């Protein structure tokens, strides 16, 4: 009896300790986890969140002497300047078209590849085909664009064929009308194989019995793909699509910038390359930060919208 009273008292004492005291106890016991977390957390706060705060430069007239904090507020001046500039329509539409068409054309290819790969029954053959299809993923964007310049140059191998037929070469890298096609097709060339991995793996998990049973019921190959394979990968398709659509405005600066020639700018100037040129090459920090911020905000809105729509569709009738 006495013992229980003592225990109760001790428990009461523990409970009565202040929140600070309890926190200290907790930290004493678990501090190691926080030490492990600290480097990533600190680096993220510095290199990701400080620049988010630094983005207020977009609402200021930046003067290097006064610094970001001390510079004068100018409200939405830079945004108005961008929206009213003659470049705006072109740059905005270029960004949108490049990423939208990129998404539409690039999205189905890995799925098709995966469905096709899934039909190869010999594992060794399948592995080797995959080996080749994945390889371009490891080539750098500089080399990819370098190869484009080589293959598509007026005297390059493609144009040797073209001029053999039509008599004169096509100016692939300088005519604006070709830019988007070259960008998107080379993207597919490089990434489609690699992007199919995730679908291939999901398809490999399908119980072969399902296909067997379906074939006994008289389902042909197309019917089996439609009713067994596609439903299997549908959730992955939804996620991949949401992520890709969310990144629609943040398409790679690198490749567009490298592919730019003075001649194809009417199609190849996108928001990201514009920000780089105005900001870092001409030094107009505040204005280009405003352009960049405009881009990021659109991006987030798009991501949330697409996520919302796909969720609705997925619960209802499904993606297709």
């Amino acid at each position, binding site marked *: 009896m006495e013992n229980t009273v003592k225990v109760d008292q001790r428990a009461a004492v523990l409970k009565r300790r202040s929140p600070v005291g309890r926190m200290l106890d*907790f930290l004493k016991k*678990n501090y*190691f*986890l*926080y030490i*492990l*977390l600290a*480097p*990533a*957390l600190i*680096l993220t706060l510095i*290199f*990701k*969140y*400080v*620049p988010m705060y*630094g*983005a207020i*430069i977009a609402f200021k007239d930046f003067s290097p002497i006064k610094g*970001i904090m001390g510079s004068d507020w100018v409200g939405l001046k830079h945004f108005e300047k961008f929206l009213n500039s003659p470049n705006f329509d072109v740059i905005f539409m270029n960004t949108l078209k490049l990423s939208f068409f990129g998404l539409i054309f690039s999205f189905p290819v890995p799925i098709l590849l995966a469905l*096709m790969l899934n039909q190869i029954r010999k594992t060794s053959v399948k592995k080797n*085909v995959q*080996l*080749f*299809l994945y*390889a371009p993923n*490891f*080539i*750098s964007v*500089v*080399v990819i*664009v*370098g*190869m484009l*310049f*080589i293959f598509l140059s007026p005297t390059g*191998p493609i144009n*040797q064929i073209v001029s053999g037929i039509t008599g004169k070469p096509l100016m692939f890298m300088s005519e604006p009308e070709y830019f988007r096609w070259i960008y998107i097709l080379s993207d597919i*060339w490089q990434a489609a194989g690699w992007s199919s*991995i*995730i679908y291939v*793996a999901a398809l490999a998990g399908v119980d072969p019995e399902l*296909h*067997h049973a379906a*074939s006994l019921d008289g389902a*042909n*190959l*197309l019917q089996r793909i439609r009713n067994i394979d596609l439903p299997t990968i549908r959730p*992955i398709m939804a996620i991949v699509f949401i992520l890709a659509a*969310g990144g629609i405005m943040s398409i790679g*600066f*690198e490749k567009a910038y490298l592919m730019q020639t003075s001649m194809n700018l009417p199609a190849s100037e996108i928001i990201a390359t514009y*920000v780089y040129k105005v900001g*870092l090459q001409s030094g107009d*920090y505040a204005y*280009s*930060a405003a352009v960049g911020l405009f881009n*990021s905000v659109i*991006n*987030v809105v798009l991501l949330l919208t697409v996520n919302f729509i796909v969720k609705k569709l997925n619960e209802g009738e499904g993606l297709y």
Partner: protein
Amino acid sequence: MAVKHSRFDRFLLSINVIFLTLAVLIVVVPLVYIVVASFMDPTVLLNKGLSFRISDWSLEGYQKILSNPAMLRGFGNSVFYSAAFAIVTVMVSVCAGYALSDQRLAGRHFFMTLFIITMFFGGGLIPTYLLVRQLGMLNTVWAVIIPGAVNVWNIILSRTFFKGVPKELKEAANVDGASDAGIFFRIVLPLSKPIIFVLALYAFVGQWNSFFDAMIYLEDSKLHPLQLVLRSILIQNQAAPGMISDQLAMNELKRLSEMIKYSAIVISSLPLLVMYPFFQKYFEKGVMVGSLK
């Protein structure tokens, strides 16, 4: 039990084989072209196209590229940046991933959200650049290694992996008197070699192939990584200084700069392309772990 194929199915399957063969050819032919062209005399290449006659071949491109100081320095820099970046980013991400996988970490959902937000929203190029400049990191190695060191994707991957480590293992060690640090370093980390290897591979390849951070942060050409050197050779058409002396005729200059393009591509991409088949299963594993979430 094998699926029974109707005649229609077999017809589809043979079309499938044709399409996949085409796909492989589309991928392989440009690569083979580059490799073969890199061994060819550029005049022959320009006038006749590819040829497999030994007399049309030459190693001049490789000689030029391998004796080019900018290229060699770029190669060395890239090895160093990629290795250093891989080490830093893997250490940071794996530690954070482990902490975030532990139920006892109060506020882990909050921290996770903090990390994930940065995947979709950022301050942008200019504020980041100004920050790096203010920290005095311009023109230093740190600029290409530190700002991008936290890779949220890697944190998610490693957290997923650590969640799969059986709890009993940690509890048993705890009963035996092991500290948190002891459990992490002596039990969990040795178990995680595969995931660490995968993440390091990804980080190495990513850094090896990137040029953007180096382009904006490193003005000193002595610090330039391989990809920036390649950019000047392949895209800006500037054969690096010292490679071609001024007296050479315009045609000769053009001939040489065309020639070294091919060998430059082969030399810079070869390490990864040769390495990749051996590591293929690890790379694939990385993609798969990520999809489990």
